[in-house]
């Protein structure tokens, strides 16, 4: 409520110039035929996601080099509103030149960020976020097809929202990636809960095994557990290793926030955690430097050692920090 909620606005006013330009002239709109793929010496992948009955549908075409797994050409066709078309176009653009494994790592957030005019101003209003989630899903579908993984087993574990066909794993992933805390946010990002509303909470016209409110509660508990673990000074070395991936990221982020980030920000830089993997006895934390840090000589020497030492001391002596 309050001033901004009273007279409403046009959602189109909240689109970035890039979104507008891509809607008017999508660059990667089109098709790749079998003949064209063959001429490139590539394998043609055609993947579909969404449905017209849900308001958005996208078909992604890839020409993939079978020797290198590199996506040589990437095109799309889309049924949807302006942001769906712009997101599909951006997604197709981001796939180009990447290997299939790299492309699978493209998230809806990468798509949305690539459409921003200013780094800190969202490219689309919240209720349009689901358009970029769809772009993300269709990549996974294309990759599954290329790798010959059974599509059903790859994508559909449990469908929580039948109307929008949103799976449990997608919901868990989107909730964590975007730190979502309300049903409305889940709906904005995934469309889950936007239609018959049965999946939001018990009491709808259809009974479910799991509801959106349950998933939020699950994530909330996880966050609390992560905070509690870090707060426990007696936790010792073993406890970091036993955390879930989300807890690990939270714990590392907290240490960086309290000890390192301020130093980086003062120099006009920052960093983000990309992944945490166990590698034999080591725990490898992959990070990416942002802003001024990314070109700084010290980022691979002094600063890196400082970051690694603090994480070793606070969390686990087996930690290694690897900048990418």
């Amino acid at each position, binding site marked *: 409520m309050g001033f901004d909620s009273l007279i409403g606005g046009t*959602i*189109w006013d909240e689109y970035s110039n890039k979104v507008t330009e891509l*809607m*008017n002239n*999508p660059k990667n*709109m089109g*098709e790749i*035929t*079998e003949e064209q793929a063959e001429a490139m010496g590539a394998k*043609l992948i*055609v*993947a*579909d*996601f*969404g*449905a*017209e*009955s*849900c*308001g*958005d*549908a*996208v*078909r992604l075409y890839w020409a993939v080099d079978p020797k290198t797994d590199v996506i040589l050409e990437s095109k*799309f*066709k*889309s*049924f*949807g*509103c*302006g*942001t*769906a*078309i712009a997101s599909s176009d951006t997604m197709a653009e981001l796939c180009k030149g990447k290997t299939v494994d790299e492309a699978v790592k493209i998230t809806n957030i990468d798509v949305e960020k690539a459409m921003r005019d200013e780094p800190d101003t969202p490219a689309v209003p919240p*209720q*349009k976020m*689901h358009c970029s989630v769809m772009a993300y899903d269709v990549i996974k*579908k294309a990759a599954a097809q290329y790798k010959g993984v059974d599509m059903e087993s790859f994508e559909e574990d449990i469908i929580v929202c039948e109307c929008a*066909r949103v799976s449990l794993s997608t919901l868990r992933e989107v909730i964590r990636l975007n730190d979502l805390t309300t049903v409305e946010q889940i*709906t904005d990002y995934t*469309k889950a809960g*936007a*239609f018959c509303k049965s999946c939001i909470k018990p009491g709808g016209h259809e009974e479910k095994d799991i509801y959106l409110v349950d998933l939020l509660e699950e994530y909330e508990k996880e966050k609390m557990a992560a905070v509690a673990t870090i707060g426990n000074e007696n936790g010792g070395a073993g406890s970091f290793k036993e955390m879930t991936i989300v807890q690990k990221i939270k714990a590392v982020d907290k240490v960086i926030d309290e000890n390192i980030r301020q130093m980086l920000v003062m120099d006009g830089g920052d960093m983000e955690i990309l992944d945490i993997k166990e590698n034999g006895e080591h725990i490898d934390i992959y990070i990416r430097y942002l802003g001024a840090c990314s070109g700084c000589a010290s980022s691979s020497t002094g600063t890196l050692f400082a970051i690694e030492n603090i994480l070793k001391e606070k969390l686990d002596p087996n930690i290694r920090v690897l900048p990418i």
Partner: protein
Amino acid sequence: MRVYLDNNATTIVDPHVFAEMEPFFVQKYGNPNSLHAFASETHPALKTAMEKIYAGIHAPKEDSVVITSCATESNNWVLKSIYFEQIITGKKNHIVVSEVEHPSVIATAKWIESMGAKVTYLPINNEGIVDPESLREVITDKTALVSVMWANNETGALFPVYEIGEICAEFGVPFHTDAVQAIGKVPVDVQALNVDYLTFSAHKFHGPKGVGALYIKKGRELTPCLHGGSQMGGYRSGTLNVPGIVGMGKAMEAAIDALDFEMTEVRELRDMLEDALLEIPDTFVVTPRSKRTPNTILISFRGIEGESMLWDLNRAGIAASTGSACASEDLEANSVMEAIGAAEDLAHTAVRFSLSRYTTQEEIEYTIEVVKKAVERLRSISSSYAYAPEGHESGLEAQH
């Protein structure tokens, strides 16, 4: 070129209406209920305006036409008064509305339902129209009110209000109709059917915004809408909106005068647009022309999401509308498209064009040209018309 084809949302104010309102802002600004010349100099114009409003719907003097602030207020008032008088008191326990009423009726009905009453939502058939026999099946001696619109805002479908009024009379149940989309498009005569309450709004027929009305038949008095200084016969307190009432009166007179024009010239332009759009392959219109208001088309372009069509139209200066997912903030499909049971893949493709007596042939010709280009461009982007290699198992249909 700028073309306004969203007249079911609101209309341009008739310049003659504006001219009649103007003196009541700076010159004759008195409160009509005061005791001095500033007050009494507003009375002749108010009286004339009220006479025109009564004449416009052929209301007898013994009945009341209460001026409100909008149709939403009028609709809320009827339903909530009935709730307070009939339902909360335990006399009745049931109301009936159609499933495609305006949100001001649907949302109020849902609130009444949440307070413990029973609400029946009458379905529409594949022409987008309520079958009066479906009312006969659900109406009982416990029914406190039936509320069914005269004309639907999305499709322009004319509902069988005469038959519904008869059934209500048979059961002694009050009948309310939201006639917002009917005034100025088809004859509305409250004495030609059995109706107890009738809602309308000035800005839908070239009058000012912020002026609605509720017709109330004698003997069907309602609990006051707003308590206070007893203006509007005690039904709706609050200082009279003098310029607004004057504007509604003039707009009503002009709308009645233009009724023949609406049913001939406007209809011809609408038909010209509709014929041209239906020449485009894979297009569908809901509700036969003879069963619609003369100014409205709700049309689906297969493979084109409604908001995308609005986007391309807007770039060319054309204003139209869609009730579908992406255009509104709630992501819902067009409720009428869902209710008529249209093919699922069309639920998000409906676009509404609504004309007025100000629409010109030149504007319609331009619109036809722009829509054809937009369809060509958007279908070239659409996955619905996209190439797939032989044997490709499309996930697009299987998704639902």
